């Protein structure tokens, strides 16, 4: 399959990229990892007249802790997350997530920033970022904006990003001690989108009482879903079987899946309930409690 013709632009700096975006408006798309965009172009579901390849902009690929945040650069690849000693030792929820995205070749190209900016509720990182309370840092002609993930996803394939803005960083508050997180996904085969998946991030006190909790759901709505009612229920409660079961039920109630080739909506709600349970249990185990 041959994509429609386009003009290829390869800026070396962020200001140069933004100038191109301003110049070409809605006709331009940013080419980052391209693992969603290029297939869309081959199917001719996307027909950008200009592709602005940001891959040669330096300084956008990093994973570091700084000023209380885990900061991940806009061009950091999934495979870099997957093999990062920092992620492997301190952020198992991110390792869980990146490992179930597509396959090794795709992860060598695909970026975390692109996974979010694409605005696809079937993508895996959005739920995890909701659970972690991440912020998306974007730069545009008017400067830098810091967008909380909770309000980032507007609707299907639509985010808060303006057409002339570039995601330069994802910043995640470093969880306090006694925290743990997990991402649990059911997929039909390697590389498939989730039938459903759940991200959970917890902080408990020394009695095992939940202090902080974030729960995000994948592919069960027009946008990634923040399971706010389940979170609210768990705050201040012990992480025992009964409370976990109740939170899982609330998360399932908040899911709005549609029936499709991956299963009927009712089944997916049941799945969210079970996966929420498993994610919370694993997150609790990882909190070291």
């Amino acid at each position, binding site marked *: *399959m*041959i*994509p*429609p*013709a*386009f*003009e*290829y632009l*390869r800026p070396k700096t962020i200001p140069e990229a933004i100038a191109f975006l301003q110049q070409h408006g809605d006709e331009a798309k940013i*080419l980052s990892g*391209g*693992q969603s965009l*290029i*297939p869309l*172009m*081959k199917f001719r579901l996307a027909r950008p007249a200009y*592709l602005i*390849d940001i*891959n040669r902009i330096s300084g956008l690929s990093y994973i570091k802790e700084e000023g209380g945040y885990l900061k991940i650069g806009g061009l950091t690849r999934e*495979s870099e997350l997957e093999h990062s000693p920092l992620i492997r030792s301190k952020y198992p929820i991110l390792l869980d997530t990146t490992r179930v995205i*597509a*396959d*090794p*070749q*795709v992860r*060598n*190209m695909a970026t975390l920033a692109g996974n979010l900016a694409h605005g696809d509720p079937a993508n895996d990182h959005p739920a995890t970022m909701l659970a972690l309370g991440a912020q998306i840092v974007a730069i545009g002609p008017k400067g830098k904006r810091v967008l909380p993930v909770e309000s980032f996803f507007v609707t299907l394939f639509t985010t808060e990003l303006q057409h002339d803005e570039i995601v330069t960083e994802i910043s995640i508050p470093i969880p306090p001690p006694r925290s743990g997180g997990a991402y649990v996904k059911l997929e039909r085969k*390697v*590389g498939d989108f989730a039938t459903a998946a759940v991200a959970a991030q917890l902080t408990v006190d020394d009695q095992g009482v939940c202090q902080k909790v974030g729960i995000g759901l994948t592919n069960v709505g027009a946008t990634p879903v923040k399971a706010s009612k389940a979170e609210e229920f768990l705050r201040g409660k012990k992480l025992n079987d009964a409370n976990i079961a109740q939170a899982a039920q609330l998360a399932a109630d908040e899911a709005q899946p549609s029936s499709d080739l991956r299963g009927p909506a009712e089944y997916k709600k049941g799945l969210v309930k079970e996966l929420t349970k498993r994610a919370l249990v694993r997150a609790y185990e990882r909190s070291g409690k």
Partner: protein
Amino acid sequence: MAEKQSVQIKVNGRQREAMVEPRLLLVHFIRSIPGLTGTHVGCDTTHCGACTVLVDGKTVKSCTLFAVQADGCEVLTVEGLMQDGNLHPLQEGFKEEHGLQCGYCTPGMLMSSYALLRQNPHPSEEEIRWGISGNLCRCTGYQNIVKAVQYAATKMRKGGNDGLSNVA
């Protein structure tokens, strides 16, 4: 029609230069400019991995990358595995352990296995299966592919020859 652009890509150690449309996919560049047809177009939808090549040492699906993106990069294809007229231990392994039937997926399987062994010369069975999880085979059921990779790993350890000195 978009203007053609000049790209320079080193394929298996040899510099290739061409004027291409930006929409030309890397797999078509590889197959048409140097005429290396070992890299296959399989599903053409980023699933099957038959088009897997290494770009600057990393595996990619060459049907999901534009040739212009690889401008200035080094590409290794299945044709670059053989050294001095000798099959690479992986190629030998696929032959000895019957790691293929129809052979369509084999170039991609070889390239993913090559990248895996470079990163991890002692992979467990699970790690091999993980390493080739982006490559589909509809013939073998994967058993003999895993054996072939194990064969190569063992041979490369014994021989002291890492077999991994190729470009990219």
